[in-house]
């Protein structure tokens, strides 16, 4: 056994109250600790939602935790207990026998050092190579991880590389000393699906070649099913289930594992998602058939948006972020907008609402809403339109004002648009809407930080609903949420659409989620609309090469051979 974790507990000291130290348990609850084994030449995946303790478990192996962490239990690496190891012993292991790859390559690489220097650092430190030897070895490593023109890349700084290339550099650094164990903490979460596919294949290939073991941490069962040999499912700091990947996916024993598998929208599944902790009655609702002749609420023709880029001292250059998008949105319908980062999908969504700064660059085309062209309205005439076309942003942690209690957040839009006669009436309406989105009255006096991500996104949706909008622009509205919470919010959005006849512009990078929500799909790449068709046609008969690549890159989960 290469790595064996037995009965691990990790707690963080968070403060002192009346002389007693307060701790929060991150890993292990009460007497129950976390135990798992990583055999040689095996990939063990640690799966769980945020707050499940999966990252803390992995980081405690090399004690990469903050100073206020307290660990107990036993972590045996090749028979040595790492919990008892001194700092210098750990430093000798770090990067040499056990290497790490983190989630965000942008912030894991040091921006002021060249790639060559960063990759050769572990070589010089652990293997004692000379600078020249280390650089030559670094070049070979970069070639091995599939970075084009490795020699030139050595003198590049991290910002000159794309996200996928940066993650390759991180992997090259981790592999530099041929470690026996690679800890990969959500290594593909920050990347686009097509890049994710490449990185996953690279990791699988390198693991085979170097015969190393991998502890792979992810929230995404689709990814885990592809890469793992064994799976450990964690929730609330304890292990819910562990076993070989085939058994976990085909015959899950634990209720949580089953729910986790069921709540993920896939490319095949039905009209409603099963959600963890969902109300049983909610499952019985059957979706209403869509009326193809419903009135058109939003008509977009040739929408373009450019940004001015500084060029030289006084000059500026136009950068076309959206190069002409057209669609017709009917009441009660959803148009899905799919694309990778930089495709212009969010820019397009914000341009619909004119939420770009006026001097950032010109907009073109027509956005017809209720007989008005939104792009040419004066700010005064735009105000009544604002009420009817609303937006939900990606990051529920950033889109609510942290200094406003929820009640104030909900009452403010109604006060601006004179909905309701008095503040008391508006507050009653706010309470009713909170209940509608599944929160209770006590939320009114709480602040955003007191809620989880899913609850905040519900508040953001309730804020839009206070204005009785006709169109909702959902900009990656569920991307930052855990799968189970994502399922609840998606179900809520579907119910609201059936009930209120809302039309959605659903922007997402996730084709499976878009398939679940949308009637029509628009695929964007580099500001261009690549393909636009009803959802079943895009999924089953994609016309364009890029769409096919996008579909092929979606993690398939576990596929029995």
């Amino acid at each position, binding site marked *: 056994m290469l790595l064996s974790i037995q009965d691990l507990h990790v707690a963080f000291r968070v*403060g002192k109250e009346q002389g007693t130290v307060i701790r929060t348990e991150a890993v292990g609850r009460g007497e129950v600790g976390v135990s798992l084994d990583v055999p040689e030449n095996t990939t063990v995946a640690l799966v769980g939602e945020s707050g499940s303790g999966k990252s803390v478990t992995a980081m405690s192996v090399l004690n990469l935790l903050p100073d206020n962490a307290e660990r107990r239990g036993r972590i045996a690496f090749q028979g040595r207990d790492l919990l008892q190891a001194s700092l210098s012993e750990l430093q000798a292991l770090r990067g040499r026998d056990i290497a790490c790859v983190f989630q965000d390559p942008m912030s894991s690489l040091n921006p002021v050092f060249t790639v060559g220097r960063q990759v050769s650092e572990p070589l010089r430190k652990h293997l004692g190579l000379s600078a020249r030897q280390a650089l030559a070895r670094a070049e070979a490593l970069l070639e091995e991880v599939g970075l084009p023109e490795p020699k030139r890349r050595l003198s590049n700084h991290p910002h000159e590389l794309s996200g996928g290339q940066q993650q390759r550099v991180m992997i090259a650094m981790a592999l530099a000393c041929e470690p026996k164990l690679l800890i990969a903490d959500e290594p593909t979460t920050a990347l686009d699906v097509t890049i994710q596919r490449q990185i996953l294949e690279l990791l699988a290939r390198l693991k085979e070649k170097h015969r190393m073991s991998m502890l792979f941490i992810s929230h995404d069962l689709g990814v885990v099913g592809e890469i793992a040999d064994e799976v450990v499912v964690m929730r609330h700091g304890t292990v819910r289930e562990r076993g070989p990947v085939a058994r976990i996916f085909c015959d899950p024993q634990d209720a949580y594992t089953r729910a986790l598998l069921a709540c993920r929208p896939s490319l095949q599944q039905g009209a409603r998602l099963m959600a963890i902790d969902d109300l049983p009655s909610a499952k019985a609702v059957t979706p209403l058939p869509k009326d193809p002749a419903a009135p058109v609420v939003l008509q977009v023709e040739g929408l373009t948006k450019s940004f001015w880029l500084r060029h030289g001292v006084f000059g500026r250059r136009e950068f076309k972020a959206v190069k002409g998008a057209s669609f017709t949105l009917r009441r009660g319908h959803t148009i899905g907008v799919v694309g990778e980062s930089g495709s212009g999908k969010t820019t397009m969504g*914000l341009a619909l*609402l004119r*939420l770009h*700064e006026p*001097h950032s660059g010109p907009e073109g085309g027509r956005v017809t809403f209720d007989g008005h062209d939104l792009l040419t309205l004066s700010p005064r005439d735009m*105000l009544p339109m*604002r*009420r009817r076309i*609303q*937006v939900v*942003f*990606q*990051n529920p942690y*950033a*889109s*609510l*004002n*942290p*200094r*406003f*209690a929820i*009640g*104030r957040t909900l*009452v*403010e*839009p109604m006060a*601006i*648009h004179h909905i309701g006669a008095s503040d008391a009436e508006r*507050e009653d309406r706010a*309470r009713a809407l909170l209940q509608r989105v599944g929160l209770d*009255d006590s939320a*009114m*006096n709480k*602040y955003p*930080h007191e809620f989880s991500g899913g609850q905040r996104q519900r508040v*953001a949706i309730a*804020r839009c609903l206070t*204005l009785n909008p006709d169109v909702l622009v959902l900009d990656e509205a569920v991307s930052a949420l855990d799968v189970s919470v994502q399922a609840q919010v998606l179900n809520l959005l579907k119910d609201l659409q059936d009930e209120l006849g809302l039309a959605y512009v659903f922007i997402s990078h996730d084709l499976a989620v878009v398939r679940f929500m949308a009637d029509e799909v628009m695929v964007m790449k580099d500001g261009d609309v690549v393909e636009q068709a009803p959802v079943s046609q895009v999924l089953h008969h994609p016309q364009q090469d890029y769409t096919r690549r996008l579909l092929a890159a979606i993690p398939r989960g576990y596929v029995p051979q």
Partner: protein
Amino acid sequence: MRAPTEGIWAAAWRRLRRDKVGMAALAVVLLFLLMVGLASAGLIASDWQQERGVSYAPPTFMGPAERDEANGLPVPKGPNVDLGDIDPLAPQYKAWAERAATYEHAEAEKATTLPFGADLQGRDVLAKAVQGAKVSVLVGVLAAVVATIIGTVLGALAGFFGGKVGDLLEWVYNVFTSIPGILLIFAFAAVAGRGTQSVVLILGFAGWTGIYRLVRAEFLKHSVREYVRAAEAIGASTTSRMFRHILPNISHVLLVQLSVHVVGFIKAEVILSYLGLGVAVDEVSWGTMLAEAQTELIQGYWWQLAAATLFMAVFVTAFSLFTDALRDALDPKLRGLE
């Protein structure tokens, strides 16, 4: 069952009341303000210019100073030498003495000790310090408020709008910061003349630049945040976004700057008064007291320095602690740590 949603300030006050240090600091600040109010109304320390004690009378607890005569020249014994035969005025002395006796003459008894001692003219140091608080606290707080308001409004405009407005304000800022601070103050002082009001305006107009820079940076950062976009999407006006949405989120910067500037401006008033550009000569401030104290200290009369320093230290500390507590109270996130 239904609790009305409380505003930012109501919630902040509720949190502040639970902060013991903050409330103590608030009490001290309020006491100082009460003292300033009473002094302005002429109810306390209005007679600070009276000669209450002998020159440099020591504080009461030290007891009266030993008489100078004790260690001066020895007093000759025996009767005075009679110079009557050579003094041409001698015949008049008797008549003058009789005339003088007809005048009523009352010399107030000068105290040999005062609670906190006396200065050169025998004025009560305690009364001076109380009266000085009126000028110093007013100057420090008001000038800091003026500077914060100017810095915040300009910083908000520059950070929020950017573009031409931002460029113009950046240019103004650069002009202001390119002139050495003390010269700028001199220039304003030359125009404004002496007096408390002038000092407030001078310090306020010359001291806003640092706050402007910080507020502009915060507005640049916040104006592209999603919650501000969300506010725009619900139709909130520009003013509302700037001052109702963003401002509370950067209030911690303002409060820290306010308290730093109060301390700085109290000290700046000292310098201005010392250079003769500050408060009028018939007024007293902690600054003028400190200026007097440097010559006295050499002679061993330390109490004027001690009084001014003590008052200043207590006020400045209490003010800083209070703004710190207020900053914490305004931040809903810190509620969990109570």
